[in-house]
């Protein structure tokens, strides 16, 4: 982006683009030169690197005015001027240049950040004890006037002249530094404002685009889910309804064997309905269209509610169900309804696999959750390893989960006992929905063994709303 503030910043900070003229104010430079001229007596001129005269604090000494009157003198003077101009002094090492009059000039390089930006010329001045050059007579000067005019030249020893130039260079360096700083500040300011504007405009455009897309997606999703659920559920409702009516004998008496068949049709219909609901949930979770209504929630009432919901079924089966929780637990950032779904699913499972006289225990306690590593492990060292979380354990005394199956149970449609004659019913979707719901809360879920028998499903949900990784 040439010409943009950022490109200019690069040039100002990295490149060679800085010019003396752009760093200092000409008027201020002239004032500085004037005051130096008044202080030290000698004339002072400041040139840019390109040769432009930026400041000229000089008065023509009478000796030079005399010289200027004759042709030969004028020629000699212009030779001096071009001689002085052609000198290329090293930084920090001003060059002394002698003049046809016997006076001297001192030429110093003005550099900033090790780049030459221009030149500073002090003189003419005469050294103490020095005499005018004998060649003045050859240039046709009235020698009677020379001693007087020579004496009017400012007197400076070479040492003094060097000191003056060093001082002026230091002052100039400070001025250049301040000028550079001011230039950078104003450009940076401008660039920052432009960058902020660009960012906002960019974000607005993206938001608008995302909004439009979401609206469209939302419409499509609603259509699809509506269609699927309607198309699948409508016939199923009829199947369930009519089989129920048949079973109840509304269409006339049926034999015990017929009743058993109808009962099976009804039960399988209900099972299929559950499966469809599960699939819809799963598809929403997978497509990311399941909207979580997260808020600061207290987990304990949710757990108690789940236990109460399952209490009748547990009583019927002769299984004890209880809740153990710590007091003063922090809240978690979660969707209460989905947390309930997770716990209900796990508790129903626990109940299903726990035999009579067994127990299902839901414990809630404060815990920590490990931060998951970034995609490439970079910057890991900067993050705290753990953050506060709430851990909910669903402990049963059932058949447990074999070691090799502990991860697989979370796969969709996976059953530990996959045989057609398996003892326990189920779609195999429950735990995969649990895993996805917990993931959507940035939490973790795992299975452990209960001793002497049974399984423990451990759900951990972070307390803090902010996620860094």
């Amino acid at each position, binding site marked *: 982006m040439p010409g943009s503030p950022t490109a200019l910043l690069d040039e100002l900070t990295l490149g060679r683009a800085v010019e003396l003229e752009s760093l200092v104010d000409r008027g201020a430079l002239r004032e500085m030169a004037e005051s130096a001229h008044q202080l030290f007596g000698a004339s002072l001129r400041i040139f840019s690197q390109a040769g432009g005269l930026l400041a000229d604090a000089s008065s023509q000494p009478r000796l030079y005015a005399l010289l200027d009157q004759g042709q030969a003198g004028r020629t000699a003077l212009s030779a001096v001027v071009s001689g002085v101009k052609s000198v290329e002094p090293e930084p920090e090492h001003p060059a002394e240049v002698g003049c046809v009059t016997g006076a001297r000039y001192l030429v110093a390089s003005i550099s900033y950040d090790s780049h030459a930006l221009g030149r500073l010329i002090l003189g003419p001045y005469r050294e103490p004890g020095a005499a005018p050059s004998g060649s003045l007579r050859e240039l046709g000067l009235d020698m009677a006037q020379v001693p007087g005019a020579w004496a009017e030249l400012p007197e400076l020893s070479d040492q003094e002249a060097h000191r003056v130039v060093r001082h002026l260079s230091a002052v100039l360096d400070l001025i250049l*530094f301040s000028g550079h700083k001011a230039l950078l500040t104003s450009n940076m300011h401008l660039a920052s404002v432009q960058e902020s504007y660009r960012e906002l405009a960019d974000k607005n455009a993206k938001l608008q685009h995302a909004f439009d897309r979401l609206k469209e997606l939302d419409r499509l999703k609603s259509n699809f889910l509506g269609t699927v659920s309607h198309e699948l559920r409508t016939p199923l409702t009829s199947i369930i309804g009519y089989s129920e009516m048949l079973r109840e004998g509304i269409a006339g008496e049926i034999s015990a064997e017929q009743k058993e068949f109808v009962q099976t049709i009804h039960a399988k219909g209900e099972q299929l309905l559950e499966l469809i609901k599960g699939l819809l949930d799963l598809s929403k979770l997978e497509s990311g269209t399941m909207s979580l209504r997260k808020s600061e929630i207290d987990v304990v009432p949710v757990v108690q509610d789940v236990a109460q919901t399952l209490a009748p079924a547990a009583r019927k089966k002769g299984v004890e169900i209880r809740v153990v929780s710590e007091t003063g637990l922090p809240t978690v950032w979660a969707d209460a309804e989905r947390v309930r779904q997770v716990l209900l699913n796990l508790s129903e499972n626990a109940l299903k696999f726990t035999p009579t006289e067994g127990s299902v225990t839901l414990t809630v306690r404060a815990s920590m959750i490990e931060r998951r590593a970034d995609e490439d492990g970079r910057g890991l060292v*900067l993050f705290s390893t753990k953050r506060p979380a709430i851990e909910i354990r669903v402990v049963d005394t059932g058949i447990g989960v074999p070691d090799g199956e502990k991860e697989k149970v979370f796969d969709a449609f996976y059953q530990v006992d996959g045989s057609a004659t398996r003892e326990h019913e189920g779609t195999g979707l429950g735990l995969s929905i649990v895993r996805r719901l917990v993931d959507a809360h940035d939490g973790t879920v795992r299975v452990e063994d209960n001793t002497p028998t049974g399984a423990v499903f451990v759900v951990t949900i972070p307390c803090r709303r902010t996620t860094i990784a």
Partner: protein
Amino acid sequence: MQLDFSARELTIKLVYYGPALSGKTTNLHSLHRAADQGIVGRLMTLETRDDRTLFFDLLPFTFRDKGGLSVRLKVFTVPGQVIHASTRRLVLQGADGIAFIADSQVAETENNATAFVDLKENLKTYGLTLKQIPLIIQFNKRDLAAVRSDEEIAALAAQGREPVYLAVATRGDGVVESFIGLLYLTWSALDAEHDLNRKFGFDSTAFLESVAKKLGHDGPLSDVLAACVGGALEVLRPEAE
């Protein structure tokens, strides 16, 4: 990097990034103090009245190689405060290497992490990932109480990819080591990409040793580089992308 062939001049941009008040500017002050006057320029700080960096700090170094190449290092800091997001992005532009200055205090851990994510996001706007840019991490303020332990940092650093340094920038401890580590990674990556050593008859090790010497560390380069506590001084190579 800017390369001016006619002037045989190479300019490298190094950026000190990190959360607010982690000691980025202090690092630059320390470097400035440690440096031989012949190589370092004036430290320019564009700061507000309360000594917080407003736009950036800039510390220029110039090294002249025997072969006539002059290497200019421009070390920048970004403003750490959250509100200066766009300024940070501007300063980051064109960086050849990044030193991430983290605050060792346990209470600052989240701020470090947030700033690191911010760095990642800002690099992304320039089409870069952390894999593509030389990076070191410095844990500053090791002298304070309630800091993350050496063991914790070493254990995490061993898992990470980038070299990690411990420092007390106010005293100058670890500052030069971090800088040389960053310069080593940056120079090596630039050399791998542009073949600088061959083009300019340049000797990287001698150059880095001379820089370390001018910053008060006399001795072999390997001694200075050994100061890092974890990760690897792994040189980025273009073909690795």
